[in-house]
């Protein structure tokens, strides 16, 4: 009896917190289909739109080229994942499994990068991008994410947990170092690669400052930075603003719901880097 009362209390708390987490999303959704007049009406306060204004979608997509924004964001995310996973797998393996002079000093550089706030790199990175004439291009967006110190650290951890005998056996069978890496070891770190991929994707998709700086052009920028622009232009037109926010986050939320286990584990292993 006492136990079930306690359980009910726990559920009440959890449900209240869930409501707090969901109401902002629900309100975004409801507002996105209202008229501006409905959003400015207080007495009576309008909760559900009287007529669902589906043309808000068309208006927003006409004002801001969301197809283009999605392509830019996806390309940036895909290229960053490709480069980060590739370079981090190689270096993670070397740091975990190979003995060579200079290794520890180089690993100290990796750790140093992880501990320093990213803003310190931004001005010179921007100068490089503009000297290379990469502003307003996808490569400009990808630029700071070509390598990943955090990814190197994560993959090194993964390789360190694999048993030593595997490599020994491969060596006795005549595998050289690249063969051992490609055929024996790297397939065993798939879950860490997935974690790094998810982390990279979420990080890049959420980032605001870098795309604002290197891709100020409406057609070249990412979803997050386009939202910042609309936020400045559409001051009081909340249905349009909420529709834009909705368009830019719904696909991510759907992917998250389907792969929530991988998402949560992937981001949890990132340990505070977001």
């Amino acid at each position: 009896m006492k136990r079930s009362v306690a359980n009910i209390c726990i559920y009440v708390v959890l449900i209240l917190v869930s409501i707090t987490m969901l109401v902002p999303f629900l309100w975004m959704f409801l507002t996105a289909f209202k008229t501006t007049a409905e959003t400015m009406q207080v007495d009576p306060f309008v909760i559900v739109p009287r007529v669902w204004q589906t043309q808000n979608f068309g208006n927003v997509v006409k004002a801001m080229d969301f197809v283009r924004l999605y392509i830019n964001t996806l390309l940036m995310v895909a290229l960053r994942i490709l480069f980060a996973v590739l370079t981090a797998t190689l270096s993670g393996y070397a740091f975990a499994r190979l003995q060579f002079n200079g290794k520890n000093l180089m690993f100290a550089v990796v750790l140093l990068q992880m501990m320093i706030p990213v803003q310190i790199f931004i001005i010179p990175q921007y100068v490089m991008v503009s000297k290379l004439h990469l502003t307003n291009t996808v490569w400009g967006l990808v630029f700071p994410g070509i390598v990943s110190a955090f990814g190197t650290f994560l993959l090194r951890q993964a390789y360190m947990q694999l048993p030593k005998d595997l490599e020994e056996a491969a060596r006795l069978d005549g595998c050289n170092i690249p063969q051992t890496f490609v055929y024996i070891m790297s397939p065993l770190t798939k879950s860490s690669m997935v974690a790094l991929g998810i982390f990279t994707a979420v990080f890049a998709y959420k980032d605001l400052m870098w795309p604002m700086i290197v891709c100020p052009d409406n057609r070249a920028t990412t979803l997050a930075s386009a939202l910042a622009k609309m936020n400045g232009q559409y001051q009081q037109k909340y249905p349009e603003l909420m529709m834009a926010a909705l368009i830019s986050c719904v696909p991510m939320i759907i992917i998250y719901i389907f792969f929530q286990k991988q998402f949560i584990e992937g981001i949890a292993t990132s340990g505070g880097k977001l």
Partner: protein
Amino acid sequence: MLPGRIFKVTDYKLFKEIPVNKKLTSRQKSEFIWGWLFILPTMLGLFVLNIYPMIDTIKQSFYKTGDFGKGNKFVGLANYQKVLGDGEIWQTLWNTAKYAIVEVPLSIVIALLLAVLLNKKLKGRDVFRTIFFLPMVVAPAAIAMVWKWLYNSNFGLINNVFHIKVNWISDPKIAIYSIAAIGIWSVIGYNMVLFLAGLQEVPGDYYEAASLDGANGWHQLINITIPLISPTIFFVLVTRIIGAMQVFDLIYMMIDLNNPAWKKTQSLVFLFYKYSFEQSKKGYGATVVVVLLAVILLLTIVQLIGQKKWVHYE
């Protein structure tokens, strides 16, 4: 991987190299060659994208950015002297501190309590976890737009549901706390997941023994759970403080220059962005970001020393 790993690198003796034999075996030779080849792309990238920029930013903080494409002028410590006497920077530092003082402890306490509740065998556990974590996968730009609308003083949901009239984000006295509330809302799911990972490693028989001794839930939390997951708490604390000191997106999206509260809400990184990219004063922007680095390092060192008092590693 245990999240506490980064700050507990005891398995790794830095700078202790393997002794070099005069004659390397062929295996050692090939490990040397392949090792360097494997780390080459990463290291090249880190030196070009991070190490050189770090040195360059520190260098720029000693220069005044030239007007209209004229060369930069070396000004020594002048930028730093200007920072010390600059009321705007002190106000900004204080704004950032206020944000962190609210966001960090509250997000940790709430997340820890939720993690303890969700660590039990409950129906719908995964559903709750998925919901709490949801804000982590949404761009802060979108989150800030929604909250700006919820906070709207005339037509916002919050004021109209509770029949109040609060200027959440335009009253200079409370605006930074309203923004910190969004920070908490965004990050509790994430902190909670880290705590849940820590809680999985606490053996269940500790609690059985404690309840046989008559300890209630609260005592178990204080005397068993918190000490046992103190390394995780410490790790979350350190990384959350670093994150909170770098707050930018939420403030940039919520506050425009017409807002009467902007002076009391702009953060250090916001100021860095404004100087470096809106006003093209890169030298001064660089100084601000070096100050940020110094503050973060100081806070981290203080915590690394302070941890001995309350963090228990097995």
